[in-house]
């Protein structure tokens, strides 16, 4: 008997791609992380204040300026406060060691939208003192107005996320 007209050797050779595909589609395994590993994630969305907020006096002048202008001219040259927002400064410490300290520019062409942050830090499994500091006023050198400090017990291969929801922090496990 000749399977599909092939010799047995030819037929067996034709099985090689299926065998290779079936094997290498799953094997060999790869070991990403071990039981001693864990990760801290700091992930949140936050809208920082505008660099220059519209004061009541400016708003009054702004509205007065609008009053006499026809509608198609109202936009040009008139504004109240700035569109741009402050950078967001984030400081993260694990067991007292600084693992992240960086200012993030708000998104958008004119930096007028929210800051989206995602930072991941590998830590060992077990308890760690985690400190997260946030400053959204762009005042470099000043104190961080929002702070979170906690000793978190990281389970083996666990991922724990710290989320900032002004003015507090939320822990997700």
């Amino acid at each position, binding site marked *: 008997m000749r399977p599909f007209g092939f*010799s047995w050797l030819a037929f067996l050779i034709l099985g090689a791609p299926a065998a290779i595909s079936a094997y*290498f589609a799953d094997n060999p395994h790869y070991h990403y992380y071990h039981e001693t590993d864990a990760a801290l994630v700091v992930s949140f969305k936050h809208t920082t204040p505008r660099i220059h907020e519209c004061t009541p006096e400016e708003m009054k002048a702004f509205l007065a300026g609008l009053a006499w202008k026809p509608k198609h001219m109202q936009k040009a040259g008139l504004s109240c406060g700035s569109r741009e927002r402050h950078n967001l400064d984030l400081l993260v410490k694990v067991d007292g060691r600084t693992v992240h300290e960086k200012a993030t520019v708000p998104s958008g062409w004119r930096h007028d939208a929210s800051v989206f942050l*995602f930072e991941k830090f590998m830590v060992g499994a077990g308890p760690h003192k985690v400190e997260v500091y946030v400053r959204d006023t762009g005042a470099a050198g000043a104190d961080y107005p929002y702070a979170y400090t906690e000793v978190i017990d990281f389970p083996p*291969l666990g*991922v*724990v996320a710290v989320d900032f929801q002004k003015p507090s922090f939320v822990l997700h496990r």
Partner: protein
Amino acid sequence: MDKENSQQDAARLLPAVIRPGWRLLGRITGFMDRIFTARLNPIYHLGAIGYFLFWILLGTGIYLYLFYDMSPDRAYGSIQRISEGQKWLGGIMRSLHRYASAAFALTVLIHMTQAFFSDRFRKNRWFAWVTGAAILPFMWFEGATGYVMVWDERGMMAAVAFSQWFDVVPLAVEPFSRNFAPGGTLNSLFFFLLSYLHLLMPCVMIIMLWIHNMRIARPPIMPPRPLAWAIFTWFMVAALINPAVSGAEANISRLIGAVEIDWFYLALFPAAHAWSISVPALWSVVLGAFGFVSVFPWVVRDPKAAPARPPIQLDLSKCTGCELCQKACPFEAVSIVPRADGRPFQWQVEFQSERCASCGLCIPACPFPALSMGEWSLDYFDRRIVELLAGKNKTMVFYCERSKADLSAVAADQRFAFLKIPCVGILGPKTVTTSLENGARGIAVFQCSPLNCHYRVTVSRVDTLRGELGGVPEVAVIDGPLPDPEDVKRRLEAFREGL
């Protein structure tokens, strides 16, 4: 005889850098020819096998899609139900889908390697090479997103890695990675988008495959039936013996430990992790490799290689617009356009020289004859044949310069007259009759392995020629490669004595 050894002729046409690979490929194809016969040698059908696997992927993918649930909570369960709830249909479909996708990547890789080392990637074939290379990222993205859809640990690994990749590209203001953090934003929209992309990619790939084959006449999109059935049978065996299963369900609150990797589609991710390659560096490596492969047609060249022949020239005063040359052209280099020279014919021929491979197949197809290629024309053939035979009862031997037949043992034999040709397709009935009228004792033609013709003359042109002449016993067609000069001598002498 122009050259004593057709093997050397063939090598001279190639850039030096690909010659070792070309010789190795020749040995492998020769071995496979012996086992499979030339007609069913899978190496000659790699493109068609790729299509066949693509059709399997499409069919099984449509079936799986009917039962797929696009939500983070139910995606994994829906795949499990396909595998376990309908083991003999859904389970097999899933296994076929996975293994055919891996084999598709493998086939494409071998197809590209074969095209490269057989010098079918440059000159007029640059377009097929570049458009083929452009399919690779789509193929890879399609394969990798398929794993994410399963939403097991391997899928999550791919999703997290993809997110890190795309987070450095200014596509969206919000990092994709935020989806895959505890308390993150992962929802059904992500799975809907993923499914949509996984469906969209094959549609894009069909268009790209069409573009890939635009400059090839009659591209095969199915391998010979016995080959297709045998391949399908083996995939069924693989699906039954080793059914595709999911790993543990994805859990975004947990790092990935040991995970199964599909080394055809996901190898980059563990490689980047193992060697701590940063995401921008990985982008550079991937884009650099892709760009490097794409420019092969222009960078792989050798000024010492034999010069290219000129493209076909047309004598418009003899052209009637009969379309026969267009039908003969394997590379879609001939267009039929409205007549522009005022002669009383409706159409005329127009050659696109950048698509012309200079194979000369159109020359004998033209009955008038309006075509030539440098010195090559039907008149040239007549002149050379008369010179070579000179009424001395010689056997006329035409040999394709790529046939890899070693003629050194008969090169000095006065019983034979040799004429090197670019391809056997250039021989027409007139060449045969001229040879016989000038006293040739038989005509022997050395061609490439019939399905391995450099110019895609997938059916032996000389067999067709035989039919056109109503069966001429004086013509013998001998398939290459014939690396043994004594074997060549034996065959030629047997043919001559047998007449």
